[in-house]
């Protein structure tokens, strides 16, 4: 279990098992995501990171164990109801609606707005400063954006309205270094707003620059949880947990 005090945790998973068809993917995941902090979920390919996020979102339901968000059990809750608790989720494939424009993608995520002019304009301006491409291609089909621009849109869409928890699956995947830096700046600004963030990452440099807390997964379990600084300062631990040094 993470060192995060349970009472400080916005999200907790306790003994979560998840099966996908005949496959047993998560083998008792214990995780606590600290309120107002950025928690990194690290691990090798196939460790169960994406499955953990999808289980939190109710896209796959836990076969055993509990998931609690802000004091409410959500283990068996349907995905739309989970999202309505003010959780934003950016999947690994970004979930961009290619046939819709950038504006329409943003409007969909703004649940309180029926029309584009009803979206919070001040918040939009802030998002445009974080991700200028979103403003530049506002009326263009999202499917025509580059991979980096789509990732920016995916994150921008997730924060179009204030959310208690932002869950992002590998935001740096396949991005050029310049865009990764842009993304790091954006998450750093988001952290300053007090938003709780859970990021899955394989890019260790990205994780080191942003993470407050870290949890490392292997074979469907959390094998280490603590502060990011502690892991970054301990090369032996990095080798043991991740097979490399940060």
């Amino acid at each position, binding site marked *: 279990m993470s060192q995060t005090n349970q009472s400080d945790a916005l999200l907790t998973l306790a003994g979560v098992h998840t099966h996908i068809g005949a496959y047993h993917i998560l083998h008792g995941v214990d995780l606590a995501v600290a309120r107002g902090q950025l928690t990194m979920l690290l691990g090798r390919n196939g460790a169960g990171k994406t499955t953990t996020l999808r289980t939190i*979102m109710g*896209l796959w339901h836990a076969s055993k164990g509990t998931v609690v968000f802000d004091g409410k059990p959500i283990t068996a809750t*349907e*995905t*739309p109801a989970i*999202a*309505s608790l003010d959780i934003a*989720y950016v*999947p690994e494939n970004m*979930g961009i*609606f*290619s*046939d*819709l424009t950038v504006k*329409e993608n943003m*409007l*969909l*995520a703004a*649940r309180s707005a*029926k*029309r584009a002019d009803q979206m919070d304009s001040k918040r939009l301006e802030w998002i445009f400063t974080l991700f200028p491409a979103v403003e530049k*291609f506002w*009326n*263009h*089909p999202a*499917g*025509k954006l580059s991979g980096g621009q789509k990732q920016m849109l995916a994150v921008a869409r997730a924060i179009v309205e204030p959310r208690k928890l932002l869950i992002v699956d590998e935001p740096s995947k396949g991005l050029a270094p310049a865009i990764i830096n842009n993304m790091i700046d954006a998450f750093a600004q988001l952290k300053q707003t007090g938003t709780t963030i859970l990021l899955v990452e394989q890019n260790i440099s990205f994780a080191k620059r942003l993470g407050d807390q870290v949890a490392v997964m292997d074979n469907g379990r959390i094998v280490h949880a603590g502060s990011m600084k502690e892991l970054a300062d301990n090369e032996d631990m990095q080798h043991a947990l991740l097979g490399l040094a940060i």
Partner: protein
Amino acid sequence: MKQLDFDWKPLVLVPLLALLVMPFIGSTSTWVTLTVAGLAMGMIIFIIASGLTLVFGLMDVLNFGHGVFIALGAFVATSVLGAMGDWTGSDQLWRNLVAVFPAMLVAMAVAGAVGLAFERFIVRPVYGQHLKQILITMGGMIIGEELIKVIWGPAQLALPLPDGMRGSLYLGDAAVEKYRLMAVVVGLAVFATLAWVLGRTKIGLLIRAGVQDREMVESLGYRIKRLFIGVFVVGSGLAGLGGVMWGLYQQTVTPQMGAQVNVLIFIVIIIGGLGSTGGALIGALLVGLMANYTGFLAPKVALFSNIALMVGVLLWRPQGVYPVANR
């Protein structure tokens, strides 16, 4: 990057087909008559197919029972119009419309209500299971046809055109039946309404997004199952409206009429791109034109012609004229 990147090529198909056939018809007036008849038939097929393409696009449900709503709409119309004989027997068009309009509304309401039950008891248990969907929805259609026989009897019923809608208008030497023009107008009205809802409202935005990636729509906090039920009911209602139009077009109705049109509808939604309303409109117009041209030029290949049309389109665009992204 260009702001407008619309794929216009499929739009050319309809006029291209009409112009390519023109030299073979010989007479311009006959060509005009056949073209208007084909467009009218295409519009009716579009009304029927528009709901089915959204149902498939949104929830990946293969509803082979869609035809029963067509037959149901047509039979309801026989009852409503039969009770309004004074109005349908008038040679004044406005009195005919006063009769036909409520018949359409009642047919849509009944088909929509039955669609609600159909989704709940027949479709919902087989989400995500294509083979079972085909089997159970076909079974549902058979049950529906038998229930129609129980209520209206097994015989073919007449659904005559109201007197004021009979006859033709003349464009030069070309005779254009009044009812076919009306079918084009109703079809355009349905398309315009669907285009407005899908393109200008948040519900429409959700439907278009759901057709592409329903899981992501749910992750944004929307209950797509409720949306799907709404689309299923509207789609069934539109099939009921199409049934009224088709019944008046044929002037007879049978419990099997929906099953007979089913093949055409699936050709239309496959040509359209499985989930695209605009694609379904183009597919329906192509199918309507092709059926009328081949019926005139080579009646023996009329049934085969639409299959050939579909094969031709799929050779050009294997996922249909407007494939839905992410599928």
